């Protein structure tokens, strides 16, 4: 526990609403405690702004423990701030010192339009999920859980991919605004498990085509995404998805067509 407080300036993007012009504004914040989280620092700022009659800075947040994926700040040019494998909400002010000017921006990507200030609309991710990010199993029709053993390594790997919190930092970090890491995490999670096999080809084709359709860019294998990912999702899953995709494309091209089906 620390008692030495300090002051910083936050240079933050202000924008009234979607499609409206925006600009940066500088706000000093005094009395910053090193044990404060970054978002708590913004809370303090917002209370001060409120009392000064300035509208508080809108920013997205919810769980404040790095799991819901709501928080989405680009701090000094890196999504989620200075640390590796840490979400914005888990960034603490002890990473800063007196007099620092901290630039806070929203995600910049066309499929994630700014809603207000630092809040962006990431519903595109939900649409990708709806395209095939599921196993079609009806409630109540599941077989006994232990009837299909899953090797521990496979389950662990699926879990590595499944940890994605859907925050979109991968898109924000990528020069191309590519959603590859997110989609690859989803595709790999389900594609690794035996339960996900029946829909494996369909899933990857549908999710990729939806991703493309929503206007995300393409991947040039730069690995900014995995470096910015708060859950350290590995870009090996992108490789895995590329392979899955190629296989699915070729399988669909060479599968036999039943007589009469061509009509």
């Amino acid at each position, binding site marked *: 526990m620390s008692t030495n407080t300090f002051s910083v300036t936050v240079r933050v993007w202000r924008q009234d609403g979607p499609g409206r012009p925006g600009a940066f504004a500088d706000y000093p914040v005094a009395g910053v405690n090193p044990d404060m989280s970054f978002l*708590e620092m913004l809370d303090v700022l917002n209370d001060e702004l409120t009392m000064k009659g300035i509208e508080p800075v809108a920013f997205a947040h919810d769980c404040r423990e790095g799991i819901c994926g*709501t928080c989405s700040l680009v701090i000094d040019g890196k999504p989620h701030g200075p640390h590796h494998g840490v979400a914005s909400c888990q960034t603490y002010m002890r990473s800063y010192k007196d007099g620092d000017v901290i630039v806070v921006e929203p995600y910049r990507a066309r499929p994630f339009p700014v809603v207000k200030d630092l809040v962006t609309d990431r519903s595109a991710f939900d649409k990708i999920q709806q395209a095939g990010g599921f196993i079609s199993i009806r409630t109540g029709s599941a077989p006994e859980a232990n009837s299909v053993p899953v090797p521990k390594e496979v389950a662990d790997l699926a879990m590595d991919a499944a940890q994605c919190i859907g925050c979109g930092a991968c898109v924000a970090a990528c020069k191309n605004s590519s959603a590859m890491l997110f989609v690859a995490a989803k595709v790999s999670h389900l594609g690794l498990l035996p339960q996900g096999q029946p829909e494996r080809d369909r899933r990857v084709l549908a999710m990729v085509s939806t991703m493309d359709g929503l206007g995300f860019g393409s991947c040039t294998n730069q690995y900014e995404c995995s470096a910015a990912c708060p859950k350290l999702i590995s870009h090996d899953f992108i490789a895995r998805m590329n392979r899955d995709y190629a296989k699915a494309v070729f399988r669909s091209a060479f599968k036999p067509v039943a007589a009469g089906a061509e009509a």
Partner: protein
Amino acid sequence: MAKLDSKVPPGELSGKWRRHKADIRLVNPANKRKYEVIVVGAGLAGSSAAASLAEMGYKVSCFVFHDSPRRAHSIAAQGGINAAKNYQNDGDSVYRLFYDTIKGGDYRAREANVHRLAEVSVNIIDQCVAQGVPFAREYGGLLDNRSFGGAQVSRTFYARGQTGQQLLLGAYSALSKGIASGGITLHTQSEMLDLVVVDGHAKGIIVRDLVTGTITRHAADAVILATGGYGNVFNLSTYARGSNATAIWRAYKRGACFANPCYTQIHPTCIPVTGDYQSKLTLMSESLRNDGRIWVPKRKEDRLKPPASIPESDRDYYLERIYPSFGNLCPRDVASRAAKRVCDEGRGVGISGLGVYLDFAESIGRLGESGVRERYGNLFDIYKEITNENAYKVPMRIFPAVHYTMGGLWVDYNLMSNVPGLFVLGEANFSDHGANRLGASALMQGLGDGYFVIPYTVGDYLASQKPGSRPSADSQEFKTAEVEVALTTSRMLSIKGKEPVSHYHKRLGQIMWQYCGMARNKEGLEKALQEIPALRKEFWENVHVPGSGDTMNQSLERAGRVADFLELGELMCRDALAREESCGGHFREEHQYPDGECKRDDVNFAHVAAWEFAGEGKDPVRNTEPLNYETVKMSVRNYK
């Protein structure tokens, strides 16, 4: 007075649910798509319900205040989910899970509901595995389990420290499938601000779009609330910042009874508070208690010494000492109160004196640092991130924090409230946990309600409603409710007083934690009942909500939620005052055994207290539903 008919089916306990399913009315398949069901909330309970109902053919509309259903607070659950699979062959059974849950709840839950929960627990695991939930596995490829507080068997299924996340992603994928197939219409960033009751039946909701500020009316044949818990009434809690009571509170004001509001679970292993700017308390999963040992110094003078310098002989492993058979794994309420006691004695560690050690030295000796990292690495990382301390080297400091609310809207066996057509699932209802929830049973309840109970019981209600009989959203009741919502919103915006919303939330939280927190007494509760209305009055005169109502306005969102907490807090204190006994998550200092254990009063309080709104400015009515224990004998809970 509200009529509280629990509708528990007659007959022998273990056959009740089976028989009930057979007796219940069904909706003809061709008619199903003529019914519209509103589901508010897409946590475990809401997503699973919406997905299952859509699969059955109902038209479902799902509303969440989040920007995506995947962000519901269920995502944060770390530890695991219970199920009576007995994969460990350690003597588990549906009955034992039922019994542990009843006992854990301090004999304040409804037997029939809890037994049903234990029965469906096994199906939940099957369902989740089939959806692709990557539960932890053993090398043989079968599912792994761990043990959790309040149980002597290993029945908890987990996915690293992110079980809630994985279960929610599973339910969310089912929801996504339903959206893709057109069976579900999803409304994100849509906050329910009122319930519409027509001719005594719940027939719709009023919703505010959090991005545009537009207020809309939505009609349906039945309304399901799965909006989670209300622990944020304490301001500081392990809940997400957005978790709120608004939906259930408005339903309460429209006639639904609010049951056992005072039952609050305080989780023993959270990271202690550091300063008044704090917005959130972070949970360190209970699973840590499997391998960590909890202690404080024996002497007050040692409390600020570096822990390593305190020799074994000067340490008090108080849980192991007082509860030798359960030790560090005793239930949450017991562990939390014990921590409070040692801190009250002045032996709490850390500058604030509000903390106890959770020490891994012994398990690191046994498993090696890598073994401990394998099990709890992500929790140690979180701890390090927040406190800047390395828990592999120095013991963690932990303290209890508000974590779960067992109270909620009263529901019958069908999960329908006393307002016909209004169903309540998950943490939002009061149902299965009694006065205290065992670890890993809320996830079970949310999914049990959504996947395996509501699909049957909604049908029973809908079968009594003529297809196409739902009122139009243009009817008078809807218009009136919409106008009221708009008025409240503009009233909040027009005060433009001197304090931000957070000021009132913090002050309410302090009152609640002090007087209605881990330990309660008559005097304190009466004081709170004076202070809260005064605070509420001040709020409505002096709050400053900047901005306007027609764009995204986070201050306005929070103001609405805090306004409801300011009313709910009072009801919680009333309930705590009226319940002249101690049980589970409700500890009245006047009612304890000499060793500080809960002293229940089964003669006078073996009932559910369901509060009924009587109008603004009037005292609410306390209705009771007696709890009849037919199978289990009520006894003094003993974890020694």
